[in-house]
Structure formats: C-alpha cells, structure tokens
C-alpha cells in the first residue's frame, strides 16, 4: 500500500513537468504582448520595452522557463502582472468560492445520480429507465451556460426564490452563502449527473447478472437489500473511477459557471488572467488544477480498497 502511494506520488513529478513545459510554451507562443497590455493604450514603445526588461520578457525563452521553474520549486509563484499581487495571495483569496462550488456540486451530483442510476438499472427498459437515459443525453449536450441562465430565469427572476448572482463568504453569513450556492452547483451538476447516472446504470446492470445476486435473492432478501447492499457496493469501483475522471469536467465547468453567476473563484480568475495575458497567474492556476486532479484520482484509487477487499496495492 505504502509502496503504491510512494510510486504514484513519484509518478506525479513527470506529469507536472510536462504540464509546466506545455503551459509555458503555449502562453509564450500565442500572439499578444503582456508588456503592452500592462503599459496601457498611451504608452510609448520605450515604456513598453522598459516593462519588458523588468518582467524578464526579453530573455531567451529557455532562460525564462528556467527562472520560472526555479522559483516555483522554491514555492515562489511570482507576482501577477495584472493584479499587482503575488500569485499565491491571489489564489488564496479566490480559492474559497471554487472549493465550495466543487464540493456542493459533487454532493448534489452523487446524491442525485447514484439513486437514479440504480433505479434505472433495476427497472431496465421501464419508463424510469428511459427518462433517466433521456435526461443524461440532454445533460451531456446542453452547454452549462444555457442551463445556468435558464435556472436563473426560472428560480431567481420569475419565482424570486434565490438571488441571481454573487457570492457571500461562508464565514460572513452562512444562509446567504448557501442560497447563492444552490443555482451554480445545480448548473454544474447537470453534466456530472448525466455522466454518473449512466455509468451507475451500466455498472449495476452488469453486477445484477452476477451469480451472487442470485444467491442473495435465494436467501430471501428483499429487493432493496439486494440492490443496495449487494449490487451497489460491487458496482462502486467503476462509478468512483468516473467521478475521479469527472473532476476534469468540474474544473472546466467552474470557469463557465463562475462567470455566469459572478462567483469570484479560480475559474473566473483564470478567465481574467487569460484575457490580460497574466502569465504567472495562468501558469500557476493550471499547475494547481493539475495537482488537484492527479491527487484526487490517487485518493480515489486508494478508496477502491474500502469498497473491494480483493484490491490490494
């Protein structure tokens, strides 16, 4: 087990290396000069050149990379060109809304999709099954911002139950925080629910054909016990895997959802940083997302052992 975790953690290093190189090159090779953006519309070319020298942008590209990586390894993520703060500070400020959104979405999505997936599998071919499958096709294909605006229109504007936009910190007022999280997390859940309910259905369907399900029924257990205790737990591993892979959807979706609902989180920070060519911020945010993705998937791999005693690392 420790062996496994150690090996997996070591394997993160090359992954992040590749991400770092890729992000760095992508940004440097796309057109647009951050120095010009920072200097503003009325700047002279001398001023721009000054800024460029100050930022180190006139160095050869590999020197820039070496300097950046060197700093990152020391925990120094640089200073944002645009926000005039250290990137670390910036991220610390912005992390709460995104974290809250991600957690609420996960909780929402799993608590909706797993039960409906199980029901769809149990009643394969029934109306419930068809409805769930139909919904999941819809959930995959409708873009997040459309869902977001629809929800805002119905629940915030027409019914007036929930606020349209904005964010209140959890420490400031919990209820205001909570009511502002409902619509964004619902929006972001839709795609996730579609994905997980489908895989739950498929996974449970497969398990329902297993011999031990027949044994469980031959014991005189009720359908509910057979489904929840015997089928679902055996179906858990593929479901967990997909939840882990779905974290990528969550990250991508956060960018859109935070923009729609005006949440000052990492997703919107990414958008703002990209628009203003704020290299240090973009690089750090992407690296952070990569680390989160890899670590969550490692945790999920480890959690398999809780569900299936046959899995040993």
């Amino acid at each position, binding site marked *: 087990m*420790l*062996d496994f975790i*150690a*090996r997996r953690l070591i394997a993160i290093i090359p992954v992040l290396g590749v991400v770092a190189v890729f992000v760095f090159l992508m940004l440097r090779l796309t057109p647009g000069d951050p120095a010009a953006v920072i200097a503003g519309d009325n700047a002279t070319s001398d001023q721009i050149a000054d800024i460029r020298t100050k930022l180190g942008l006139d160095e050869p590209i590999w020197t820039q990379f070496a300097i950046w990586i060197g700093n990152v390894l020391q925990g120094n993520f640089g200073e944002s060109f645009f926000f005039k703060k250290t990137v670390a500070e910036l991220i610390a400020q912005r992390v709460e809304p995104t974290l809250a959104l991600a957690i609420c979405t996960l909780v929402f999505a799993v608590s909706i999709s797993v039960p409906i997936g199980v029901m769809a599998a149990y009643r394969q071919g029934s109306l419930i099954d068809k409805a769930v499958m139909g919904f999941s096709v819809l959930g995959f294909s409708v873009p997040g911002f459309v869902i977001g605006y629809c929800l805002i229109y119905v629940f915030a504007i027409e019914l007036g139950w929930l606020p349209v936009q904005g964010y209140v910190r959890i420490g400031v007022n919990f209820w205001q925080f909570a009511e502002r999280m409902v619509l964004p997390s619902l929006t972001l859940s839709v795609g996730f629910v579609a994905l997980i309910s489908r895989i739950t259905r498929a996974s449970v369907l497969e398990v329902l054909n*297993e*011999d*031990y399900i*027949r*044994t*469980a*029924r*031959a*014991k*005189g*257990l*009720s359908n509910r*016990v057979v489904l929840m*205790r*015997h089928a679902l*737990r*055996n179906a858990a591993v593929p479901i967990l895997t997909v939840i882990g892979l779905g974290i990528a959807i969550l990250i991508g979706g956060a960018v859109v959802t935070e923009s729609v609902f005006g949440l000052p989180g990492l997703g919107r920070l990414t958008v703002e940083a990209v628009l203003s060519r704020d290299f240090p911020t973009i690089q750090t945010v992407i690296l952070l997302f990569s680390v989160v993705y890899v670590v969550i998937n490692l945790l999920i791999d480890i959690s398999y052992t809780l*569900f*299936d*005693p*046959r899995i040993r690392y």
Partner: protein
Amino acid sequence: MSTEPKRPVLEVRNLSVSLPKGADRVHAVEKVSFTVNPGEIVCLVGESGSGKSVIAFTVMGLLAKALKPTSGEILLEGENILTAGEERLRELRCTRMSMIFQEPMTALNPVMTCGDQIDEVLNTHTDLDPAARKAKIIAILARVKLPEPERIYASFPHQLSGGQRQRIMIAMALVLDPVLLIADEPTTALDVTTQAEILKLIAELQEGQGTGVLFITHDFGVVAEIAHRVAVLRWGELVEMGPTEQILSRPVQGYTKMLISSVPSITPVHRGVRRDGTTILRTEKLGKIYTGNAFFQKARVVKAAVDVDLDIRRGETLGIVGESGSGKSTVARCIARLIDPTEGKIFIGDTEIATMSARKLRPHRRRVQIVFQDPYRSMNPRITVGEFIIEGPMNFGLGRQEAMARARNLMETVRLDPNSLDRYPHQFSGGQRQRICIARALAMEPELLIADEAVSALDVSVQKQVLELLDEIRVRLNLAVLFITHDLRVAAQICDYVAVMSKGHVVEYGSAEQVFGSPKADYTKALFAAAPGRHWEFGKFAA
C-alpha cells in the same frame, strides 16, 4: 433410503414452463411430474438445454422474467409455490427450501465477509440477537467441517478455496434446517477430490436432518455416487424415472441407454504399447516459474511447472491429468510457446524451441497447434468459420483458393457440411464449434495437436463423438496428440500414455494401462479413489 409413506417435501405436478417467442422450442419444461421425499436424494439428469436448471429455479421462484410457468403445481410440503406471492416466497427461501449453485467462485458476494453473508439469512428470517446469530453461524461452519470457524467467519470469499466456498454456500443453505435442498450442479466446477468431499458432506447432512434433496447434474458418476432416485430429462420432458440402480443398469428408454453408454469407462482401453514411431515432442526439465516483482516486499514465486520430462511419438496420445493448479495447462502452453518457459528444453522433432527468439520460432509455430476448452470463446464471433480456418495457412503463404479447398476438405474430416464455411460461429452448437476448432488446428498440418480440456465443456453424448473424432484423426493423419484433461474417464479412453501432475510436478508417468491399472504414486491413488461412480461400470447398451 426412506420410502415409507410420508408426505413428500416436494411434489412437482404436470409442470410446464414456456420459453419466450423465437426460442428453438415452445416449452423449456413440459408436463414434468416428480416427487422428493424427506431424506431422499433425487437426481435430475440431462444434457444442456434439458430444462433441469429451469425446474430448480422455478421451485425457488427465481426464474428469469422471460420464462413463465404456464401450468401445473409445485407443492412444497403441500403449499403451492406457483400461486404464492413474492413476499411469501421470500419467507420460504432459506427457511423451508434452499439452493446451492454450480459456481462457488462467483456465487458469494466478493465484498462481504462469509460470516456476514450467512448472518444476513438469520437476520432476515429470525429474531435472534447478534450474539445468538454468531453462535449459530459458528456452529454451522463447524458442521460443514470448515477449519477454524472463527477465522472463516471473518474471511472474504476470495481468501478461501473453491471447496471451502461451496461449504460456505452449504452452511448458508442449511443454517435454518430447510426441508428441501436444491443443489444445481454443486460439484461440477470443483476438482475431483474436492467433489468427493462435498458429495459426502451433502449426503451426511441431509441424512442427519432428513432433508429432501433435489440434485441437478449432468454427470452419471455423481448420480451413481449420491442418488436414491433418478429422473432423466431431455428437451424439457421427463424421459424416465426410477431408483438409481434400475436406471443405471436397466434403462428402458433409448435416450437413457444412449446417455449411459456415452459415459466413458474408467478402465483404459487396451491399445498396446507401440514406442516405434519417431519422437515428435520431447521436453527436458521443462519449467515455468512466475516471479512477482515488488518494490519493498519479498517477491512472490510460483512454480507452475518443475522438471517436466515428457515425450510423444508420432501416432500417440499422451494425456496430462491433474486437478486445477497442477500445471497441466502451463506445460501445454509452454510447449505451444504461448507462454515462455523459464527452464529446460522443448524439442519439436529435432528443433529446440524453448529459448528460440520469436522471429526464429515463427516457421515452427505451424508444427504445434492447440484446441482450447471453451468453443464459445475461442472463436472470433465476427468472422466466418471459413476465414477462421484459412487465416493460419494463408499466413504461412498458402493461396486463398488452396486454403479454401483445404478448409472444405477439413470440414468433411470433422463431419460438418463444407457449404457452411460462410456461416458465423453463433450459428453452430458447442460440439460443432469444437469440431471447427479442430479443423482450424488441422488446417496448419501440424505434427503435434494439443487438446487443452477440449471436451470438458461438452455434453457427454457430444463429448463421446468429439473424442471418437479426435482418435480417428490421430490414426488417419498419424498425429502426435497431447491431451490435457482433469477427467480421468476421458483420459482412460483416449490416452496411450498418461502423466499425472500435481503442484507443478509430474508425479506419475507411464502407459495408460499401467497408470490406471496399478497406480504407484499416493496422489494418483487418491485421485482415482475420488472419481465419482468409480465402482460403477456403466453398461454399453444398444440404443
């Protein structure tokens, strides 16, 4: 045997179960009637598709939704199960009637401990408190003769052997002393020595409790071993029923006679020792050792085959007999170089191939061909039988026309219609598919044919035909055959020489007559002693 007029525990009257539309016949089971008395073991015998399992599942109320009982009654101690509601059926399951299944490997939930799985039965059907439940479970685990019941209680199924898992199933089925036990091929997936123990256990337990047992099997050896009465089924209909002795030695119906005559005898046929042909295969200290690689822990070493010395001459059949895990398939796969041996030498003719590089080996691949156990899974379902047969020869440079002509010839050799070469595997039965697999192997014009449990998945009447076919082909083409099997009866009928393997070693090696007639190794003796129905010489009737 108890034949005194007690009320039967199970009465099946005129039972019919319909198949969904589009099946090959209307009824899975048609107008079947029989009874099981307290303390009696009734065997339902039949080949695949005879409806024997359908009857078992109908009694338990566990039929697949597509199958519907259409007429008749099933009385469990007088109560009609066919009219009982789902709730009532659940109450009856495991309390009055229990079932054990064929595959102990998959019949238990892999993510729950064995103790918890038995506990579920007690928790559902009784009001016992946890301590009393645990005590009862420990007691039943001891009764099914599992060692260290406490440890077994806390074990997961994958930590136990197949035989132990079947004991868990039996414990689960019998923990509430049901009046009826349905056993659906409970020993088919087990090794012969384990099978003997499980059969003995079932017989002991049912005798002690006076349980009626409905025992489903395709194996007449098992029938001879355990049954009081036998019912023979074919295509959903009851062909013949009577006391075991009568059915086995004086069957009336032609079908029963044919079935019993098809059971291979455990006495080897006299084929004479030839030892004059050229040696086709010779292995010298062949070994295969698997080593796991771990970072920190000690690497696990599995010796799948150790110091195996075998030889086969042209026109001879060498059988390798052994239980699962004995290494018999490992040896076969090494010889075919499907896996790489780690030690020793393999000579095909004069060519040493054990250490040959993949590139150099390629021309020699043709010389050794293999037929596998499961004809359903060893053919690509998406390509026609013709393509399946000619792919190999064409790979070795034969033109399409010639290859097709060869395939047509071979279809005749294996007694199939040459015009069916453009059909797909699913259009053939299991026995036909195995013939096609043999034709595929022969298309390569091999010198050595390996049959790895090639008849184990087949019904006994089909098995007999395929065995005869293999032997005929061996004689006609003067082939060397390596025959891997766990079935002693089959080995006795087809092998000139037999090697008995256990735990990777060849423990006995000699002519079939010598090994079967006067086994020397203790392991061989134990193996023969465990063969079901070994005291029974199945008669050869003119059908």
